[in-house]
Structures are given as structure tokens and as C-alpha cells.
């Protein structure tokens, strides 16, 4: 097995593992699973395996894979702050039907009846930022050194995916939130917040991933 094949395999494993976390909440809201069980069975194991694979890439001196992964995770976390500025502002202006990280927290800790507290808020925010990190990881591994419009497109695709997901369906506001208020407030907030996420992600990775080939470059080799 060549080094390029090994790098490709690690990248593919990382991509598969990164895709787990963002799909857990939609699966729960679709009635397919109970969140507290998914945390133990999927969320924590996938997080641990991602860290293990990054360490393996470091030990094997696969600097490019290691850097793409770490850069993606950190850029994803920072981009989530940009997303949050718009999402939280939208929520406070009444443009969102609810506070999603708080909702995720109470569902994660199975304490809907008693409502949110500091621990559920921490859990919800941690999960939200981890999802941001995972989207950053996926983008970094797939695109490598990127352009701004790559990030914008990526952010918008995530936003659209969210608006047609079981999460929005469970909020009872219809696809794209057309049933909420005048029909545009929700989608406008989601689009702006995810565009901000994508733009900040691309802006950071343009610099951090300079000169690092992406997965497609390896595939061709």
C-alpha cells in the first residue's frame, strides 16, 4: 500500500466519522432514536476516533492530512461563532421560533420536562460547536486550499440541508420555515447565518491550508 493510499484511507475514515455528529439530532427529531443513547454509542466514539486518526496521521508524519484535519476543526469552531452572531441576533429579534442549542441540550440530557439549565445549555452549545467543527473538518479535507465562493456555497448547502431536515419539520413550521410568521424570517436568518459560517470558514482555510492538496488530488494519484 502506497503512502498516498494510506493518506486517502485516513481521509475517508475522517470524513465518515465527521458526518456522524451532524446527523444525530436530525435522526432524533425524525423519531428514529433516543439522543442520550446516541451520545454514548455514536457521538463520543466518533469524536475519540477522529482524535486517534489525527494522532496517527501525526505519528506517521502525514503532515498534509494532519494539518487539513486540525485546520478544519479549528476553522469550523471559529466559523460557528460567526454563525452564532447572526442566529442569536435573529432569535432575539423574533426571527427564529426557538433557541436551537438550548433545545438540543434538553433533548440530549433528556430533561425537556424540567426545562433548560446550565448543564443542558453547556451540552447543547458544545454539541452545536462540535457540529461546526465537523463541518469544518469535512470542508477542509474535501477542498483543501479553497476560495471564498467555495465556502459560501458550502455554507448555503448546509443551511438548505438544515431547512429541509427533520429538525425544522419537528418545529412545526414547515419546510424552509414558511409557516413561521410571514414565511421569510426563519429562512432569511438561516441563510445569512450559514453564509457567514461558510465565508469565515473559507477565509480562514484560504490562509491555513495554503499549498496543501485536497482529497481529489490524492485520488488522482
Amino acid at each position, binding site marked *: 500500500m502506497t503512502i498516498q493510499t494510506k493518506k486517502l484511507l485516513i481521509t475517508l475514515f475522517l470524513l465518515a466519522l465527521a458526518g456522524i455528529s451532524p446527523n444525530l439530532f436530525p435522526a432524533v427529531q425524525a423519531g428514529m432514536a433516543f439522543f442520550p443513547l446516541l451520545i454514548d454509542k455514536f457521538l463520543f466514539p466518533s469524536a475519540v476516533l477522529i482524535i486517534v486518526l489525527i494522532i496517527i496521521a501525526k505519528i506517521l508524519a502525514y503532515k498534509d492530512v494532519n494539518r487539513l484535519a486540525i485546520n478544519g476543526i479549528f476553522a469550523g469552531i471559529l466559523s460557528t461563532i460567526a454563525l452564532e452572531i447572526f442566529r442569536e441576533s435573529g*432569535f*432575539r429579534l*423574533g426571527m427564529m*421560533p*426557538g*433557541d436551537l442549542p*438550548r*433545545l438540543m441540550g*434538553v433533548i440530549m440530557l433528556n430533561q*425537556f*420536562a*424540567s*426545562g*433548560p*439549565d446550565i448543564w443542558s445549555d453547556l451540552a447543547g452549545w458544545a454539541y452545536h460547536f462540535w457540529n461546526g467543527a465537523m463541518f469544518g473538518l469535512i470542508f477542509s479535507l474535501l477542498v483543501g486550499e479553497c476560495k471564498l465562493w467555495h465556502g459560501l456555497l458550502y455554507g448555503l448547502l448546509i443551511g438548505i440541508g438544515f431547512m429541509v431536515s427533520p429538525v425544522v419539520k419537528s418545529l412545526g413550521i414547515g419546510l424552509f420555515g414558511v409557516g413561521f410568521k410571514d414565511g421569510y424570517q426563519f429562512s432569511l436568518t438561516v441563510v445569512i447565518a450559514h453564509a457567514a459560517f461558510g465565508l469565515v470558514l473559507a477565509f480562514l482555510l484560504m490562509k491555513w491550508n495554503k499549498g496543501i492538496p485536497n482529497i481529489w488530488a490524492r485520488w488522482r494519484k
Partner: protein
Amino acid sequence: MKKLIDLKPITTAMIAFIVMALLSYQQTSAQSNVVTVKSSKSYDATIEGIKKAVAGSGMMVMSELNQGKMLSMTGLSIKAESLFIGNPNVGKEAFADNPAVGLAIPIRLNVYEQDGATYINYYSPSANLGNFTGNKVKMIAQELDKKMAMLTGMFK
């Protein structure tokens, strides 16, 4: 002397209106079955007091539903909490008599704040349990009516 205004139709209309109003009031009361008590204590003190009083009256709080906190996730700021109150032994007797009573017990006691005042309300147990057959169920319902009245009476 001929009267300037004939009062007969006006009197008849007024009597009809009063009778209708009384009938409608009776209907509303019979349909709602909601007992509401205005608490003399603050919202938090009422919740705390109920929890202690429930324990002292041979029942227990089986579950709490904090709707106020729940709704804070939507941006609404209110104080409202439901306490589900019951006793496993009494429940055993009621369920043995008629397993359908789970719809009415444990008793749901709702505490809420409105215009600065705290209120406690609940569906009358005898009215709720009256929907179910069973002699034991009816006896339990009457007992629960008394217990709930005593419990909430402490906060008047």
C-alpha cells in the same frame, strides 16, 4: 290614562336575558371543572410550599413539568409549572378497579403567575375520574377532592 311607553316587551326581554345569562353561567361552570385558588404567597414560595404540603398529606410529587422554563427556549418569559401528584398505593387501587384511569391520575396541579399574583389550579378529581366506571374509583375521587381542597386551601 294611556301609558306613553309600553314596558311589557322590555321587561320580558330583560327577564329572558337574565335567564339566558344564568343558564350560560351554569353551563360554563359545569363544563370547566377547573378549581382555581389565588395564592397568598409568591410564586416560588407557593411551589416550595406545595411540595412540602404534598409530602405532609401522604402523597408525593411524581413528576414536574416546568412549562415556564421550557417556553424560555422560544423567547417567552412566564412563570408556570405543573406538578403531578399522587400516591402509588391509592393508584394501585384505582388502576386495579379500572386501568383506564391513567388519563386522570396522578392529579395535575398547575401553578402560574399572572399580573403579579400567583394562582393554583387543577381539574376537580371527582369530575375527571367521574368519566370512568368503578365504585373504588368514585370513592378515591371523592377523597382526592377533599385532599386537593385541603392542600390548596393552605395557600389562600
